[in-house]
């Protein structure tokens, strides 16, 4: 549900009207609007942002590991509308066991490499991604370095 305090924000209200079940929560802090979206609704929410909100650019996709909390991962999407000069952050939480979310490449082509990076460094799987393989680490690498339980130093045994 969209918090009462965010009803005055056009993007939040329009998304809440179009996809009422998609918004988990939201906040406006440091001058930035963040909406948390149900993970199975993320592609519809992005498409709504692109068509209705004129968010023509996907600025970036990244993830945050909240280990050992559950749901463990946050996938973070930063959208940017050049014509309106505003930015919007969408978020989805994923569980630590078998994290999976739909790929945003159907909406934004530039999602391709960002999702490959998140897949590589966090081990989050993107369904329907056209070319999901490692981008930073070598192809035969084991583990996902940006996970919080991945040590920074030490010998592989």
């Amino acid at each position, binding site marked *: 549900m969209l918090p009462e305090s965010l009803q005055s924000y056009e993007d939040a209200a329009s998304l809440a009207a179009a996809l009422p079940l998609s918004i988990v929560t939201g906040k406006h*802090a*440091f001058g*930035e609007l*963040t909406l948390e979206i149900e993970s199975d609704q993320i592609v519809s929410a992005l498409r709504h942002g692109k068509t209705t909100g004129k968010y*023509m*650019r*996907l*600025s*970036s996709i*990244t993830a*945050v*590991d909240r280990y050992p909390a559950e749901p463990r991962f946050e996938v*973070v999407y*930063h959208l940017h509308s*050049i014509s309106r*000069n505003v*930015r919007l*952050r969408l978020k989805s939480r994923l569980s630590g066991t078998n994290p999976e979310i739909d790929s945003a490449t159907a909406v*934004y*082509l*530039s999602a*391709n*490499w960002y999702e490959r990076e998140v897949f590589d*460094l966090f081990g989050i799987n993107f369904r329907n991604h056209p070319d999901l393989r*490692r*981008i*930073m*680490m*070598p192809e035969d690498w084991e583990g996902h*370095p*940006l996970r919080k339980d*991945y040590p*920074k130093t030490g010998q592989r045994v």
Partner: protein
Amino acid sequence: MGDVLTVNPVVPAEGENGEALPYQPRRMVLNMGPQHPSTHGVLRLKLELDGETVLKAEPDIGYLHTGIEKEFESKTWQQAVTLTDRIDYLSNLANNFCYALAVERLLGIEIPPMAQWMRVMLVELSRLNSHLVWLGTHSLDIGAMSTFLYCMREREEILKIFEMFSGQRMMTSYIRIGGLALEPPRGWHARISKFIRTFPSKVDEYEDLLTNNRIWIGRTRGVGVMTVEDMLELGVTGPMLRAGGLKYDNRKENPHSSYEVFDFEIPTQTASDVYARYQVRVEEMRQSARIVSQALAGMPGGAWKADAPHVVLPDRDKMKTEMEALIYHFKIVTEGFRVPEGEVYQIVESPRGELGYYIVSDGTSKPYRVFVHGPSFGNLQATNCMVQGTMLADVIASIGSMDFVLGDSDR
């Protein structure tokens, strides 16, 4: 040029009875890089060719991945400034700047005007530095060697200015959370004035060598064309977008750190080819020189670091005479400062495009997560769109016009 990986068997032009067969592309996969000199670092391109025509170009990045984002999580907030230098090693100050702005927003501290202006001036000098290296190496790739020597001459002077300020030529770490690292050195004003007074005439010299040069025009005009729609869809930002006619610059659209008081133009072109990108960047150099001149003329006086004793180290003499200052000094040096919980996505206009720092704090003295959105990463994604269907020799000109830094995309 590289190793030939696979060659399909030659398709005969004539059939068994001597009749002409329809033309079949003879597909060849050519590996270019990661040690190829014109890929400016360690970019690897997998090119699929038909003769000299590029059917597909697949960039392969990650050869310079150093785990900087992981490293951030084990440094204190102020220590992490040194990591930002190493991301985009041609515009270190833009990275220092963006990181410092992001953390300052989380901390809610106000930066005094003198430090803001000084930051703007140094970031613009670093834009000049970056554009000079780009122009020098890009023209060298295409065959104009003298421009390279001219550009390095001015770049050397900028690096000496950085050295004067911070003691370092490249890894400056001069813009810190809460202001600047050190008081500006004695004689900085005269040094930069001397440089910036002659700089516009140096840009004229580069233009004399290239702008109307027939070989340069022949190699760059109509090469590497992309539409604005494609660029937006593929995540391209910065001078490439402006060379396509989209007038968008974060310094104007979302002014930060006193950019709103400076008078400068955002150059644009419409051709969206390699030549247009050259024109945009050359004009940006002139505009950056204008900003630096204005900063020199109107530099406000006052403090060069914020009045935030829990974040900024106290002056040396205060530390030795006042107890509070000594306590703050001890706290900051031993455990660093705590940053309130929250997340920000700070954008600045780096010489290559939109540079973003997404910083998550959990309220401790170390960053919980720092994500760096380097403009080169987005720009490189468009490689295939730009070179598909062009000649192999134009690939060099096209990727050169992107002005990527692999440290910026691989992190």
